C-alpha cells in the first residue's frame, strides 16, 4: 500500500493545520475566546456544527488517499480510507437504475424462465435485497426500526449529558445513521444510477468535493483580499486607486465567462500532457484545484471591498495615530493593529462564503465547466439527473439525494454562519 497525497489533499492538510494553530492561539487568549463562547452558548450553532462536523468527518476520511499494492506494482486506482470503509457500497454495483430500497431493477427486461420462455419482467438485483425470496416491505420496516432503535440508544448514551436541543439533535442523527447503516447492508438505500452505482455512495463521495471547493478556495481568496483590502484602506492615494481599479474591473467581468474560459484552457493543457499524471485521480484532482483557484480569483473582490472600508475606519482610530507618532513602520501597523481588528470580519465573510461556493460548484458542473466528469460531485450528479428527469418513468432519486445532501450541508453552514456573525457583531447589544 502506498499513501498518495493529491494536490487538494495537501491543501486540505494545510488548512487543517492552520485551523489547529488558530484554535491553539484562541485558547490562549481570553478576549479571542469570548465570542466563541457566545457561539458555544447558541443551541442553533452547536446543532448545525454537529451536522457540519459529520460532513467534515466524511470529507476528511475521503481525503486520506492510498494505492493498493498488486503483486509488485501499485494499482492504478487511487482509493481513500472512506472508500475502504464503504467498500460494500462501492463494489455492489447493479446493472442499471433501481429505485431506493428496491429488490428489482427499475425497467422491465426480457429474460428466459425455467421453462425456456422469454418473459418481460423486472429482473432481481444482484445485491439489493438478495437475501429475500421476494420483495418484502416488512423486512425494510424491521431493519429500519432495529437500526433506528440501536441508533437512539447510542445517541442517548452520547448525548444524555448535553443540553436539550443538542441532545435531541444527537439522538435524531444517531437514529438516522443507525437506520441507514442497517438498511445499507442489504439494500441500496437511495437506489442506483444508470451504471448501477449506489447513489448513497455517490452522495457521500460528493461531500469531499463540495467541502474542498468551499474551503480551499478561501486559501486563494484570503491572502489576496486581506492584503489588497487592508493596503488600499491604509495607504490610500495611488495604492488605493490601483487596487480599486483592479477589483472593479474584475467584478464587472461576468464570472461564469471568466471561469469557463480558464477551465477550458486548463482542460486543453491537461489533455495535451497526459504524461504529467500517473493516475486518473490526480488528473481530476488538478482540475479541481484549478477550479478552486479560478473561483478564488473571481470571488476575492467582495471581501476586499469590505476590508478596505473597515480599514478606512480603523486608520482614523487614535491608537493607529499613536503608533504612527512613535514612528512604527507601516507594515507593523498593518500586522499588529489593523489585521487583528478586522479578523472578525474575515471570519464572518469566510463562513458566509462557504455555502455560496458549494452551490457555485454545483452550478458550474451543471454548465459543464466545473470539476472533471470522472470526479463525483453534487454538480455532476445533478448534471446526470438532467436526462433522467426527462425519462419515462422518471428517475428522481439521484437528483433528490444530491438535493437533500446539499441542502443539509448548506443549511447547516448558513445557520452556523449566522450564529458566528451574531457572536462577533459588536453592534448587537448583549446586556
Amino acid at each position, binding site marked *: 500500500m502506498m499513501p498518495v497525497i493529491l494536490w487538494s489533499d495537501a491543501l486540505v492538510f494545510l488548512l487543517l493545520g492552520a485551523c489547529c494553530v488558530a484554535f491553539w492561539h484562541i485558547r490562549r487568549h481570553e*478576549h479571542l475566546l469570548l465570542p466563541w463562547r457566545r457561539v458555544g452558548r447558541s443551541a442553533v450553532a452547536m446543532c448545525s456544527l454537529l451536522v457540519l462536523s459529520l460532513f467534515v468527518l466524511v470529507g476528511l476520511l475521503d481525503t486520506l488517499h492510498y494505492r493498493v499494492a498488486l503483486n509488485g506494482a501499485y494499482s492504478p486506482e487511487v482509493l481513500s480510507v472512506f472508500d475502504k470503509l464503504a467498500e460494500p457500497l462501492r463494489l455492489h454495483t447493479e446493472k442499471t437504475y433501481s429505485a431506493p430500497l428496491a429488490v428489482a431493477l427499475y425497467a422491465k427486461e426480457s429474460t428466459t424462465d425455467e421453462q425456456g420462455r422469454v418473459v418481460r419482467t423486472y429482473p432481481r438485483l444482484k445485491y439489493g435485497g438478495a437475501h429475500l425470496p421476494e420483495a418484502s416491505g416488512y423486512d425494510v420496516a424491521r431493519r429500519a426500526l432495529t437500526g433506528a432503535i440501536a441508533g437512539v440508544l447510542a445517541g442517548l448514551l452520547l448525548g444524555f449529558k448535553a443540553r436539550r436541543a443538542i441532545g435531541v439533535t444527537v439522538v435524531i442523527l444517531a437514529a438516522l445513521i443507525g437506520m441507514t447503516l442497517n438498511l445499507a447492508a442489504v439494500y441500496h438505500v437511495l437506489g442506483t444510477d444508470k451504471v448501477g452505482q449506489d447513489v448513497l455512495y455517490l452522495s457521500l463521495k460528493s461531500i469531499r468535493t463540495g467541502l474542498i471547493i468551499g474551503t480551499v478556495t478561501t486559501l486563494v481568496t484570503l491572502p489576496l483580499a486581506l492584503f489588497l483590502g487592508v493596503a488600499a484602506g491604509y495607504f490610500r492615494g495611488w495604492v488605493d486607486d490601483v487596487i480599486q481599479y483592479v477589483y472593479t474591473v474584475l467584478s464587472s467581468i461576468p464570472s461564469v465567462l471568466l471561469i469557463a474560459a480558464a477551465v477550458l484552457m486548463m482542460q486543453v493543457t491537461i489533455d495535451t500532457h497526459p504524461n504529467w499524471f500517473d493516475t486518473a485521480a490526480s488528473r481530476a484532482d488538478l482540475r479541481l484545484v484549478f477550479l478552486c483557484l479560478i473561483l478564488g480569483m473571481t470571488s476575492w473582490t467582495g471581501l476586499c471591498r469590505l476590508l478596505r472600508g473597515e480599514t478606512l475606519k480603523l486608520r482614523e482610530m487614535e*491608537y493607529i*495615530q499613536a503608533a504612527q*507618532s*512613535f514612528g512604527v513602520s507601516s507594515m507593523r501597523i498593518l500586522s*499588529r493593529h489593523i489585521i487583528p481588528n478586522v479578523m472578525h470580519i474575515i471570519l464572518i465573510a469566510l463562513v458566509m462564503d462557504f455555502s455560496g461556493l458549494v452551490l457555485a460548484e454545483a452550478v458550474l458542473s451543471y454548465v459543464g465547466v466545473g470539476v472533471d466528469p470522472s470526479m463525483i460531485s453534487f454538480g455532476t450528479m445533478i448534471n446526470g439527473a438532467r436526462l433522467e428527469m426527462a425519462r419515462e418513468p422518471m428517475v428522481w432519486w439521484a437528483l433528490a439525494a444530491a438535493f437533500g445532501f446539499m441542502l443539509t450541508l448548506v443549511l447547516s453552514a448558513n445557520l452556523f454562519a449566522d450564529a458566528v456573525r451574531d457572536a462577533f457583531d459588536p453592534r448587537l*447589544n448583549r446586556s
Partner: protein
Amino acid sequence: MSLLKVKDLVTGLASGLAIVDGISFEIAAGETFALLGESGCGKSMTALSLMRLLPDGVANLSGDVVLGGVSLFDLPERLMRGIRGGSMAMIFQEPGLSLNPVMTVGAQIIEVLALHQGLSGALALQRCVELLAGVGIPDAAWRVNEYPFQLSGGMKQRVMIAMALAGKPRLLVADEPTTALDVTIQAQVLQLLRDTQASTGMAMLLITHDLGVVAETAHRVGVMYAGQIVEQASRQELFSRPLHPYTQKLFAALPQAGLRDQPLAAIPGSVPPLGSIVQGCRFAPRCDRAWSLCREQTPAWITLSEGEGVRCHLYDRIEDGGFRIEEKTPKLQDVAKPNPILNPESCILKVQDLQVHFPIRKGILQRVVGQVKAVDGVSLAIAKGKTLAIVGESGCGKTTLGKALLQLIPPTGGRVVFDGRALGARASMQMVFQDPYASLNPKMRVAEILEEGMSALKVGANSAARQAHIDGLLDKVGLERAAKWRYPHEFSGGQRQRIAIARALAVSPGLLICDEPTSALDVSVQAQILNLLKSLQQELNLSYLFITHNLAVVAYLAHEVCVMYLGRIVERGSTDDVMNHPAHPYTQALLSAVPRIDEGAREYIRLAGDLPSPANPPAGCHFAPRCPCVQDICREHYPNAVNVSESHVVHCHFQSISVDGMTALD
C-alpha cells in the same frame, strides 16, 4: 401641585438587577429639576423609563410615574404614544444622530405637528416656521427646506428643541442637551431653554453631569449615584451647603484657577459596576468619611424638609445638618511661580508661522479650487517644564495644530524647532489622545501597548530592560504592575487614560501634546488625571501642550494660554492675564459663556451665529462678523499683534486703538 410625580421607580434588567433603584422626585409646572451624576449612574435610564422607551432586556420593575394625574405605567402603549411628543417630549444628547438625515427639518417637525396637533398643509408649514423662528433660527422660512447636514451642531439642537416643542409638551426631558456643543453654543441653547420655559410654563427634567449647567438652569437638583438619588435640594441650598460626601467631592473635584498650587480633591476609584454593592452605602468604597456602619447598613432616605433630603449615615441623627466637611488637600511641594516672560533659550518648542492647508478639489479633473486653512500661520513657544494651553471651539484647528506638530499631518509651511533642532526626532514629543476608548488597541495587552513605542524607537537595550521600564511606568501613573498582562477592555476610562499617558511617557519625551485628555471622562476621574499630569510635570520636568475647550482646566493647569479662532491665535498670554483680563472680544465672550457655579448672575456676552467655515474665512478680522464691538477697519484688515503687556499679546484693532490712544495720552 406637582406636574410629574415619580415614586420609588425601579428600572432594571429582567434578572432583577436594578439600574435605577428606587428613586422618587416631583417636578412642578414651570420648574426645572436637574438630575446630576457621573456616567453610569442611571440618569438616562430614568429618563427613558419615564418615556417608556427602555431598550430590550430592561424593564420598569416597580414604582409609579404620574404625569398630570395620569399614571403612565398603567396606560396601554397606544395611549402612551399620544403622551410621548404630546404632553411629554424629549431632546437627546447628540443632535447629529437624532435627526433623520434624509428628511428636511421642516418635514420632521411637520410630522410631529400632524401627529399631536392634527395640523397639515399650509397651516402646519406656517406653525413649523413659527417654531423654528421661536428657537432663534434665522431665515426660518427658508431653513424649513434644508436637510440636517446643512445645519451646524447648535442649529440642529435648536431644531430638536423646536420639534420637542411642536407637541406643546407640559414636561420636557432634556438628556445632556448641551454636552456635544461648544461653550458659546451651549450658552445660547441654555438661554433658549430658560426663555422657552418662561414663556410656556412647562416643567423640565434636565439630565446632566455638568455642575455649571445645573447652576445656570435648575431650580431643584437631585444628585444621583449608582442608581439612587443620594441628595436632593434646591439649587441655592445644594451649592451653598452640599450635604452628601459625594456632592461635596464633586464640587471639590472641579478644577479652578484658585486651586492652582494644590492637587484637586479627586475621588478615588470609579462608579461601582451594576449590582456589585448589595449591602451598605454604595459610595462607601470611595468615601473618605465612611465608617463600619456605612459598609454594613444601607443608609435610609432622610427627609430634611419638603423636597429636600439626603441618603447618608452622617445625617442619621443630626437633623440640623450643620455638618460641613472641610477638605484636607495636601499642598504640593513649593511650586515655582510661572515666569511671565519666556526666556527664549529655555524654550523646548518653538513654532513659527506654522500652516496646515487642505486643498479643496472640485470637478472632473479634481482641480484645486481653494484651501481649507485649518492652521493658518501659528507661532508659539513652550518653555521647559511649563504648560501651554490652546483654547478654542471645535473646528478652530487646535487638534490639527497638535497633529501637525507631531508630523501626523504634513504641515504646509512654517518652521518647528524642537530643543534647538529642526523637527525630526519622534521620541522627544508624544501625544495623549482624547478618547481613551479609541486610543488603545483592544487586541493588545498593556505590556505590548507600552513596548511598541520603545521597540520602534529603540529605547531600552533588551526585553528585560524594557519590562523593567514598563514596571516603572505603571508605578508612575498609579497602576498595579500586574496590569500589564491585561487587555484594555478590563480597565475603566480613567485607568485607560493612565495607560495612554504611560505609553506616551515610555519613550521619555520632553513634550506631551495632550488633546482634550479629560473631556471623555467624568469630573471625579478628570481630577485624578489632572493631578497625575501635574505631578508628572514636576517629577520629570515635562512640558505640555494642552489642547482643550474646557477653560476651567486651563485655569487650573496652564502657565500660558493661546486662544485660537479659525486657524489663528487671536490672543496669547500668561494664564492670569488671559483668564482675568481678556483683551480680545472673542476671549471675553468665551469666558463669559462658561457656566459658573460660584455666582448667580453674571454678564453674558452673546455671540451671534456660528464659527465660519475655514474654507472661506471672512475678510479682515475673522471674528468681525460675530464681534460685539466691530468697527469698519475690522472688516478690511486683519489686525496685527498688539502687546497689552509684556506677557500678553492680542490680535485686535480695538486693543490697538486703545493702546494707541493710551500712548497718545502719554
